[in-house]
């Protein structure tokens, strides 16, 4: 790969070719694979999709357990209700996601891409459907090359039909997290879906079909930003999918039972199965590539061949750059997992997780905003008292109605005019006008700090001590 040196003879001019900047997409037909990592991948498919398709059907307290009610601006997650004021938790959740991504990418490479990413998960499901209908890899390649026939039409219709059904169900489930899914179900069959619900179902469903059915690895290769920056999250101690070049080369076919050293070959029998199972269509033997999504299908495939040849497993395995260079065993690899970068990510992640859990556990069920009347700075009322007017905006976050006692403190001789017991409905807010009076010689001229105490009658612990200011002219 070196450039032409000046000592080259001048008459060997490099020849130029004109190449198109674009190429027709060659469809990738991944071969079916089974093994430890394939089992892990399918376990995650089941786990994530059971949650996604199932959780929206769970009831809680007479409503859907997980519901993001955008119209009412409340997010329900089981017993927790999040109001717009709680958006900080969403921000923290995103930070937690980011740091955990950095952490396990630094440790194990593209674990997200290969095992948990929805693109991988849905592509796996759609590919499984394709395999069940159209057959194994060779059968599918033949079918693609064959001219249209009754059989091909039938197979294609069955495949696209199943994909469309699953994609629509996915879109329906997605919308079911924003509109209660049971009402959505009845609306669906009575053709009374709202326009936006219909739009989002079709939109989400259409893109599931497009990305999982047709685009597949194109998303990973050309569209996903994570694919592009995962390279900077690796270091020489990151576990990545590695082909042991030293052990495998030179590659070549041989009969079973022949010792590789005797024919001056490495362990790689050049079966090409690692290339056939790859969902992105790369050859891992060329080294770690940016298209590799870390799904470990090639590891499972090669291990099976090694077992058949009576060679030790692990010709393609999870290993690190340092480990390959220095021929480390697992002990050294593991001891290098705990390094500065990993420690820092873990510490930050741990701290933020603790803060997150603590924040949610101590989320107040009562919020009080005191809005002082601005224009009526301070007015004189009978008896020579000075009066300030406030509006208390009381938000009852809990899901039961509450009655609260209101009182005020902070200045000598203060008194409050207005309702002392207020009632706020469940998950609602009410605004109350309150006048506070004090003698004109109480406190100092100008602003004085006072406090409003709002306590729930049912539960003493639900209380807010909110500060406000009282103006003396």
């Amino acid at each position, binding site marked *: 790969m070196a*450039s032409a040196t000046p000592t080259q003879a001048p008459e060997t001019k*490099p020849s130029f070719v004109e*190449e198109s900047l674009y190429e*027709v997409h060659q469809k990738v037909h991944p071969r079916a694979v089974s093994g430890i990592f394939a089992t892990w991948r399918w376990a995650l498919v089941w786990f994530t999709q059971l949650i996604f398709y199932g959780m929206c059907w769970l009831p809680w307290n007479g409503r859907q357990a997980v519901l993001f009610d955008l119209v009412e601006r409340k997010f329900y997650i089981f017993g927790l209700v999040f109001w717009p004021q709680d958006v900080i938790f969403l921000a923290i959740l995103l930070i937690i996601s980011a740091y955990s991504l950095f952490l396990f990418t630094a440790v194990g490479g593209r674990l997200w891409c290969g095992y948990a990413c929805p693109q991988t998960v849905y592509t796996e499901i759609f590919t499984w459907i394709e395999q069940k209908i159209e057959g194994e890899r060779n059968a599918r390649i033949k079918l693609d090359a064959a001219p249209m026939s009754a059989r091909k039409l039938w197979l294609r219709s069955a495949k696209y039909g199943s994909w469309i059904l699953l994609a629509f169900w996915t879109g329906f489930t997605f919308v079911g997290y924003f509109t209660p899914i049971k009402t959505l179900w009845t609306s669906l069959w009575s053709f009374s879906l709202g326009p936006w619900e219909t739009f989002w179902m079709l939109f989400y469903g259409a893109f599931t079909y497009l990305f999982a059915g047709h685009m597949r690895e194109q998303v990973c290769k050309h569209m996903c930003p994570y694919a592009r920056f995962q390279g900077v999250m690796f270091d020489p101690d990151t576990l990545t999918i590695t082909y042991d070049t030293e052990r495998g080369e030179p590659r070549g076919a041989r009969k079973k039972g022949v010792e590789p050293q005797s024919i001056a070959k490495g362990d790689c029998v050049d079966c090409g199965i690692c290339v056939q199972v790859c969902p992105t269509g790369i050859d891992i033997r060329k080294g770690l590539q940016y298209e590799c999504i870390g799904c470990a299908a090639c590891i499972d495939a090669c291990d099976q061949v090694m077992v058949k040849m009576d060679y030790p497993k692990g010709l393609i395995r999870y290993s690190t750059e340092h480990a390959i260079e220095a021929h480390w065993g697992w002990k050294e690899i593991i001891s290098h997992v705990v390094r500065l970068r990993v420690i820092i990510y873990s510490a930050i992640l741990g701290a933020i997780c603790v803060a997150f859990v603590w924040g949610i556990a101590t989320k107040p069920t009562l919020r009080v905003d005191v809005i002082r009347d601005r224009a009526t700075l301070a007015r004189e009322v009978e008896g020579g008292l000075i009066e300030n007017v406030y509006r208390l905006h009381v938000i009852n976050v809990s899901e039961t109605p509450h009655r609260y006692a209101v009182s005020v403190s902070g200045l000598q001789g203060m008194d409050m005019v207005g309702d002392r017991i207020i009632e706020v409905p469940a998950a609602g807010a009410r605004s109350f006008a309150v006048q506070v009076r004090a003698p004109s010689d109480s406190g100092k001229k100008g602003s004085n700090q006072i406090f409003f105490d709002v306590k729930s009658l049912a539960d003493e612990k639900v209380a807010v001590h909110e500060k406000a200011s009282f103006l003396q002219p």
Partner: protein
Amino acid sequence: MSDFVSGFWNYYVISIVLASVIGCAVLLWIQDSAKHVEGETTGHVWDEDLQEFSNPLPNWWRWLYYITIVFSLFYLAMYPGLGTYQGQFGWSSTGQYDGEMKKADDQYGPIFKKFQSQDIRAVAVNSEAKEMGQRLFLTYCSQCHGSDAKGASGFPNLTDNDWLFGGTPEQIKETLQKGRDAMMPAKGVKPDLNGDQIKDIAGYVRSLSGLATDSIRAQRGKDLFAEACSACHGPEGKGMVGVAPNLADKIWLYSSSENSIIETITKGRVNRMPAYGEFLGEAKVHLLTAYVYGLGGGQTDAPAAAPAAAPAGAAPAEKK
């Protein structure tokens, strides 16, 4: 509707827009292949050994580009973008605003209409109307009159029964629709009052409301009051609807302190309630009238010039 005075700018914009869009298409078309050294790489070398593979993009990238160009031409035909051309859909931001206003009118109009046909007294006790009225009040009136409508220095308390311009529903509505201008001339009808005399009158006025004052001053002030003030405020200071406030009650628009009264007499007062008829429209004025009337203190019968009618239905002690 163009702000430009010359038609040149219209064509300037059109040519730039079209040149850009068509230029992009042309660029895509002529730049869809590249020459490079035979082999896997492009032939360029940076920093001694950094090279670049020649990896073509998938075809669908190119098709997406072309689709966006076609879409942009379609968009420019349908929406404004080519200079002053309005577009086939005839969209404009004022048009969108009008559409939204019409939608709101269609939605809220029937609710307003329902109350507009009812008498103010009936509307004042309707709970839905009260809530609407409160929201309107908080939006339009509370900045001066306070969020509890109890006023502030210089802004009347709307919950009491003291109405300078009358408290019947019709009078309240007129106040809202046309506004009010109130003016107290400095020193009343006797411009040659001096400081000491003003102090006397102030003392007398305070005594009318039962507030502490120097009785000698108050006695002198009584005579001066008859000369200077009773033309508008009445012989006993009880005021006249539409002319002058009642000075003999406990309600003070400005402070009840002696200094404040002296200032009122010395400098006079000018106060104005803006007209809301055109700004709010009939329906909202109707609701607000009912709300204010329902706050308490509103009068039920026709305005009587005699201030004796003012306390009708309400004791001098107010609701506070």
